[in-house]
């Protein structure tokens, strides 16, 4: 299915751009639409030069009108197109919830299939850092995953960013495609050419025998950092399951991991109450999977994300929190958390050279 050979590296943003270009080249029905798609910044580079390569009508700049744009792509999809709608923040897409939840998510079901399918991808970017504040840094992934009929995708690696985007465009359902802003500049190997990562399959991003960490999006990066430290310093082997697709959910992979490790940490880039982490814990409980210790959720606290770096520093859970949770479950190494290496940059930027603002 995917091309396994190359080891070429791209950033996450370049991978999205490559996946999008691949879709536009392969399928004349596909187009990208959203505020700023062909602008000089090109949605953080993810749509750069698409208009030059494919024409202005394949990479459309439009009025803000999030709700009507969502209706427009629904209608265009019903008319046979395969649109990709972009929002520069999840928060902006809230203006389009009526069309997403009432129309896109339900169309196929409520007309009993006779209404047609809605093959749309709605890209939303989860902001973070440099004082983004309460209305530029929500993830709301649990919300979207709560709605029957929406597929919810949250890649963590450049390869998956490309592969999942291609699969999302090919899918006949509305797909909410969540991109954490801090992933855009991360590099990793990305298969060249046609590369498709099926929706609804978790990835065991790192094998381990002692405790399972279920994570998605940017929390996978934190989980992998925690697992590296745990293995190197505490002799704790964390298995990291990258959810990749919150709905439909591949619970089997999660269950298999938990059966093996009998320990569960769920790391979620979202607030806690009624969240996706609670869903995983509930499913593990309902499945009767035996745990050696109570499960732990590592999430944002139940408040809006504040702007000040002093507050943001305590808002966002990170690798040390995941290590601590895992160490406590396993019953060893928890005191080593003090030795967890500090990030080499301030807490409100993804990397040291980051110039701000986003």
């Amino acid at each position, binding site marked *: 299915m995917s091309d396994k050979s190359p080891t070429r590296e791209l950033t996450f943003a370049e991978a999205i751009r490559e996946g999008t270009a691949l879709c536009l080249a392969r399928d004349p029905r596909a187009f990208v639409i959203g505020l700023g798609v062909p602008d000089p910044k090109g949605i953080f580079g993810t749509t750069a030069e698409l208009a030059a390569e494919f024409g202005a009508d394949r990479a459309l700049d439009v009025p803000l009108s999030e*709700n009507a744009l969502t209706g427009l792509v629904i209608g265009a999809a019903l008319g046979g197109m395969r649109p990709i709608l972009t929002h520069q923040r999840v928060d902006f897409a809230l203006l389009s919830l009526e069309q997403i939840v009432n129309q896109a998510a339900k169309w196929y079901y409520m007309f009993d299939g006779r209404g047609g399918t809605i093959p749309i991808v709605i890209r939303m970017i989860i902001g973070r850092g440099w004082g983004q504040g309460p209305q530029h840094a929500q993830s709301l992934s649990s919300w979207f995953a709560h709605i029957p009929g929406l597929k919810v995708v949250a890649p963590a690696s450049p390869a998956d960013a490309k592969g999942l985007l291609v699969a999302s465009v090919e899918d006949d359902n509305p797909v909410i495609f969540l991109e954490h802003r801090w992933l855009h500049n991360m590099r990793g190997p990305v298969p060249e050419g046609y590369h498709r990562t099926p929706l609804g399959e978790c990835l065991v991003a790192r094998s381990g025998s002692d405790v399972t960490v279920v994570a998605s999006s940017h929390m996978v990066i934190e989980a992998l950092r925690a697992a590296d430290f745990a293995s190197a310093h505490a002799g704790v082997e964390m298995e990291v399951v990258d959810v990749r697709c919150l709905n439909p959910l591949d619970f089997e992979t999660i269950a298999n991991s938990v059966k093996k490790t009998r320990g569960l940490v769920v790391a979620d880039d979202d607030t806690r109450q009624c969240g996706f982490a609670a869903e995983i814990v509930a499913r593990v409980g309902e499945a009767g999977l035996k745990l050696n210790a109570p499960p732990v959720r590592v999430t944002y606290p139940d408040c809006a994300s504040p702007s000040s770096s002093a507050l943001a520093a305590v808002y966002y859970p990170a690798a040390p929190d995941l290590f601590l949770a895992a160490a406590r479950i396993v019953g060893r190494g928890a005191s080593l958390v003090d030795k967890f290496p500090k990030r080499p940059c301030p807490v409100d930027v993804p990397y040291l050279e980051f110039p701000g603002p986003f």
Partner: protein
Amino acid sequence: MMANSPVPLSQPPRAETSSQICDRLWRLYLEMLRIRVIERRIAERYGEKEMRCPVHLSIGQEAVAVGVCAHLRKQDKVMSAHRSHGHYLAKGGNIRAMLAELYGREAGCCGGRGGSMHLIDREAGFWGAVPIVGSTMPIALGLALADKRRGGDELTTAFFGEGATEEGVFTETLNLACVLRVPMLFICENNGFSVYTPLSLRRAPDFEFGSYVRSHGSLYFSGHGNDVEEVFALTGQALSAMRQDPGRPCVVEFSTWRYYEHCGPGQDDHLGYREAEQIKHWAERCPLAVARTRLLALSPALDPEMTAAEKRYIREIDAVIENVRSSPMPDAATLQRGVFAP
């Protein structure tokens, strides 16, 4: 937005022969009559509590549906909202699938998942109605965009009430249509009330809908929605203007009146939310009565044919209802079928 002004009972001079006028009006009248009979039957049988879904009857507003749809070909696309029976039927929507949907049957146009507010018959060019006010407008625009990109010549029409123009999505959609130069037809049925709330509480006295629409770059026409000939003529003018100015959308606003309650099988004028003078005014301008008076003036011999047609439509709808009532309910095992498309 214009007030609900009187429908003139006189008609403008035309170049057509009276025979042509009569033939067309007869067809328009018959279609209005068919819709009236069907909806009246729904109202009469609603009390049996077998149609267990909200119904928003379009009784009184048939002329807009019929006069507009008379211009549309099968492949032209129509979308609508909660009060969509008339639009669905006038566009040629399958009557059995509609009634089966109201009765919650498997044979319903949504397999019993939607009810009266979710009609669809894509084969007839009716691409769906949903009850969230204004929501099908941008979807219709998307359909029109897809047709435009394919180089098709289909026209897409969205029907909605004047309340929908108070939703942000109307302005967003109109603006997008103008900016993207997608020709679509917006048909606004202004019946003066959003449920019980009059227009006077929803728009400032000096609000001018036509200027508002035109300032976005759209064409705009307005006329009397209870006069099916005027609806037909004005829609013709609108389509002609759209052809002469390709890429421009067009909004046509028709004043009209619903005779029944907002939702349900009865009349509710006893509640006192509409002024007696208005009620009387519009009662004298029933779209069927207006057309009937004019037809009989043109051809008195049509009188018995009108009676015969009404009887025929009653027989037909009764047969459909009996057929639907004896048809199976949806299989419970299908509850979660189609949450995702395969």
